[in-house]
């Protein structure tokens, strides 16, 4: 059954349909002319010498741009290309993105002159902002921060930071290539380079009336090193001509034809399919399975047990051991696996967890001392002198990502090389996993990135790669495509932590807070407490105390879209509404006044966002009973003079007497800092996040019973549909004086507090635990 490498490649080249794989193999000859399938973009030799690692320009002026982030629907396929092409000054109509090679990234370093961030931080419009590239160069290190000085730098796709972190070095790459193209033409014409002009892939020299195109001089530029790359400068925001304009996403034409190749679509000659079942209780394993019961079924080839994937490869998350059935087709593998008797070894402590006892443990933890994170002023003294005390306890459940494409990976392990085809938000870490599991060095791991059918959190991919690598490593020479069922995908993902929060405020006689205390209890620390509460209180109070109270459960907890901000903003903005009502004040003006009292460096931008959203929504004009406007601020990073992202939204929500929630209208005021890369992508991300947090608010919860997740398909873990889309959506942007952090994951969290407010105003019921659809919301 083994496939010899050379024969495999020949077979690939000959197979023709449906897909022929491109494998980037240095040095070369065997692979010349082997193309990736339409809609895919995998490691391959460039057709002509590259200008630099990011850019290949073909004689017909086609510009191939290497994308080092993963396209998960957020638009990096386009925005990363825009950052490079802004500086390259090429013809945008001839730009073709393809994925950067994570294999080269394991072999090559980024040029030293690109490592220093230009400019003077978050408030310098001429600079690179404040990228968070993580620790200094550490090769062969697993963990969350990628490999900051390797060729393609930050290949991880997370924290909505692809633009914020990658902009400066992608601009530098485009600028370097442009200057080398100009140098090559100048030498060719024996003209001073300063007299040449580059625009839309055309280079002109007015004096001698000469003209050429990038495609004609690219081979010369490829052989012309830049004499002084340290002197290269990136364009300041006010010089942009491509960035800042609305550009349609470059992969959409393929997406509407069904031609984009996601990981699930990969086919390799000789490939077999694997279906897997992992123990549904995390930390559990396989006690026994009976392959004899299914051995004779059509297509079935083998079955194997795999152990609990090494937590060190998965950011210390403990998933489960499981069984794989390998067959000719996935359906054969899946149905055989369903018919195969499996006995699980379920650890008793983990198997005894359920939502009720876990929630009770979290609530109890709030009365323990916890860990004090912030303690400003004298909170206890202020409470002792309060005119009124308001206290509320909130809860949010575990939540899965539930991306539409179930976890999968295709892996071929031979004795000296690993090939993976996968949609992956952390290819550098997966490369490391492949090396650790197989013993084959990272420089011989070829991870061919595919588009992902939804991402929503870098480590939500769980052990999809690790399971597939373990299975393929036991079947060396045979490509194995492992695919999870939807139900298995709910076992293989990380979850946003269940958490509880107790907020307590001391109000003075006018209803203004003189002290606030926040206690958050959650499963493991890390993805929540540090967001939104861990600095000064966003709304001013002279005395502020914040503590976290940790309980450790067995569910793997990771960075799901919105991370901690999502739950925390539900807590804080709901509580602010409660305080405003206790004070008898307008929730918009109450917020406005409290922000005005702070010394936050970007408070003027926050107030502007609130004012703009309120004005857009017609705040204060009468609405019929059952219809309510609610406002909230969404802010990240603005406690210091660093990068920040500020928006405010007003949600108009109706609640029918029978308790049906309808989001009628959303008015969004969003800052654009010094400038967005692609405002169209920003709009789409805002639209999408309205649904994301609407789902969190209204529909979704992951509950546990006997240690296992109960909601494991879309019948029990509902996703909003067309009928729930707000009919009216208004989005306005305003310029501010700093770079943004990113807006792809924690915008529109305000949907949650807004719906709570609408329910409270309409029905008198203040719902403090999500999701709303588990409550009786009827009123009369």
């Amino acid at each position, binding site marked *: 059954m083994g496939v010899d490498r050379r024969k495999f490649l020949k077979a690939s080249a000959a197979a023709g349909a449906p897909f022929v794989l491109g494998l980037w193999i240095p040095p070369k000859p065997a692979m010349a002319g082997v193309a990736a399938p339409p809609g895919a973009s995998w490691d391959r030799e460039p057709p002509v010498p590259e200008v630099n690692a990011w850019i290949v320009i073909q004689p017909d002026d086609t510009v191939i741009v290497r994308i080092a982030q993963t396209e998960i629907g957020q638009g990096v396929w386009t925005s990363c290309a825009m950052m490079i092409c802004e500086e390259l000054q090429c013809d945008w109509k001839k730009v073709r993105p393809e994925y950067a090679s994570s294999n080269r990234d394991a072999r090559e370093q980024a040029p030293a002159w690109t490592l220093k961030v230009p400019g003077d931080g978050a408030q310098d419009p001429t600079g690179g902002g404040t990228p968070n590239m993580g620790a200094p160069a550490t090769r062969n290190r697993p963990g969350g921060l990628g490999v900051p000085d390797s060729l393609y730098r930050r290949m991880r796709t997370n924290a909505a930071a692809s633009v914020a972190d990658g902009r400066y070095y992608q601009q530098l790459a485009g600028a370097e290539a442009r200057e080398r193209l100009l140098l090559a033409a100048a030498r060719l014409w024996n003209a001073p380079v300063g007299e040449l002009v580059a625009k839309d892939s055309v280079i002109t020299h007015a004096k001698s009336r000469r003209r050429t195109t990038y495609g004609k001089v690219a081979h010369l530029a490829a052989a012309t090193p830049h004499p002084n790359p340290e002197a290269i400068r990136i364009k300041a925001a006010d010089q942009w001509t491509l960035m800042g304009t609305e550009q349609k996403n470059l992969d959409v034409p393929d997406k509407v034809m069904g031609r984009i190749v996601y990981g699930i679509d990969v086919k390799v000659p000789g490939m077999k399919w694997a279906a897997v079942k992992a123990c549904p209780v995390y930390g559990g394993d396989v006690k026994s399975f009976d392959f004899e019961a299914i051995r004779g079924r059509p297509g079935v080839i083998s079955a194997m047990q795999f152990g609990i994937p090494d937590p060190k490869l998965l950011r210390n998350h403990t998933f489960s051991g499981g069984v794989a059935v390998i067959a000719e087709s996935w359906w054969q593998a899946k149905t055989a696996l369903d018919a195969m008797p499996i006995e699980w070894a379920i650890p008793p402590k983990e198997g005894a967890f359920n939502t009720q006892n876990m929630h009770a443990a979290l609530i109890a933890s709030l009365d323990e001392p916890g860990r004090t994170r912030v303690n400003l002023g004298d909170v206890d003294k202020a409470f002792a002198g309060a005119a009124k005390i308001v206290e509320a306890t909130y809860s949010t459940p575990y939540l899965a990502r539930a991306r539409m494409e179930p976890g999968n990976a295709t892996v071929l392990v031979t004795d000296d090389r690993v090939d993976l085809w996968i949609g992956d938000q952390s290819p550098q870490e997966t490369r490391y996993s492949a090396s650790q599991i197989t013993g084959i060095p990272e420089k011989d791991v070829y991870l061919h990135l595919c588009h992902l059918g939804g991402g929503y959190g870098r480590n939500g991919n769980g052990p999809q790669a690790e399971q597939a690598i373990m299975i393929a490593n036991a079947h060396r020479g045979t490509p194995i495509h492992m695919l999870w069922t939807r139900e298995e995908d709910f076992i293989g993902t990380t979850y946003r932590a269940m958490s509880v929060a107790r907020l307590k405020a001391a109000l003075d006689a006018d209803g203004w807070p003189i002290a606030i205390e926040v206690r958050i209890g959650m499963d493991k620390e890390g993805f929540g407490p540090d967001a939104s509460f861990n600095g000064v209180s966003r709304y001013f109070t002279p005395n502020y105390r914040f503590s976290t109270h940790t309980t450790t459960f067995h569910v793997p907890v990771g960075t799901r879209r919105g991370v901690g901000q999502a739950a925390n903003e539900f807590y804080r903005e709901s509580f602010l509404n409660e305080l405003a009502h206790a004070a008898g004040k307008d929730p918009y003006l109450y917020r406005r006044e409290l922000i005005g009292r702070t010394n936050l460096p970007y408070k003027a931008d926050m107030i502007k966002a609130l004012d703009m959203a309120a004005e857009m929504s017609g705040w204060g004009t009468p609405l019929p009973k059952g219809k309510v406007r609610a406002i909230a601020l969404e802010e990240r990073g603005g406690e210091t003079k660093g990068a920040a992202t500020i928006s405010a939204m007003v949600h108009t929500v109706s609640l029918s007497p029978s308790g049906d929630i309808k989001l009628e209208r959303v008015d969004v005021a969003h800052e654009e800092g010094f400038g967005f890369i692609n405002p169209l992508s920003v709009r789409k991300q805002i*639209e999408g996040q309205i649904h994301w947090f609407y789902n969190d608010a209204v529909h979704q919860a992951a509950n546990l019973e006997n240690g296992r997740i109960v909601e494991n398909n879309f019948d029990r873990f509902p996703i909003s549909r067309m009928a729930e889309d707000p009919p009216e959506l208004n989005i306005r942007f305003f310029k501010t004086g700093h770079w943004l952090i990113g807006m792809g994951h924690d915008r529109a969290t305000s949907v949650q507090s807004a719906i709570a407010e609408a329910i409270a105003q309409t029905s008198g019921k203040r719902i403090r635990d999500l999701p709303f659809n588990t409550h009786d919301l009827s009123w009369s």
Partner: protein
Amino acid sequence: MAFELTVNGRRHRVDADPDTPLLWIIRDQIGLTGTKFSCGIGQCGACTVHLDGKPVRSCSLKAGLAAGKQITTIEGISKDGTHPIQEAWKAFDAPQCGYCQSGMIMASLALLKQNPRPNDADIDAAVTNACRCGTYHRIRKAIHRAAELMRA
């Protein structure tokens, strides 16, 4: 067991258990991967194809039952992506991750063939597919645009 299926106007001889869901025959045997697997229980619609012009969720339909009928997949609606519904989708840049979009387009196209002037309520009732990225706002606009283009 072998049987015949007609997909996008072409006849294919399929050697498989006729109880296999149509989705897997389309993807694995016929090699058309634009139709997606997501939930496997007919909930999300990512696997939507047309059977004699009607939308069906192919993950939950036995392939044998599709024999003798016209099956249309996303690959069959145009050769070059210029069907009016595809043009409308492009005009609004509707997809995000794109995974559900083949099914969305097929469900929407089935609606437009049966109702050339759908209102918003018609769209809500007929297009019940799930999109985790939340692209509904643009999809609705694209359906209305496609309706105009298809009437023209």
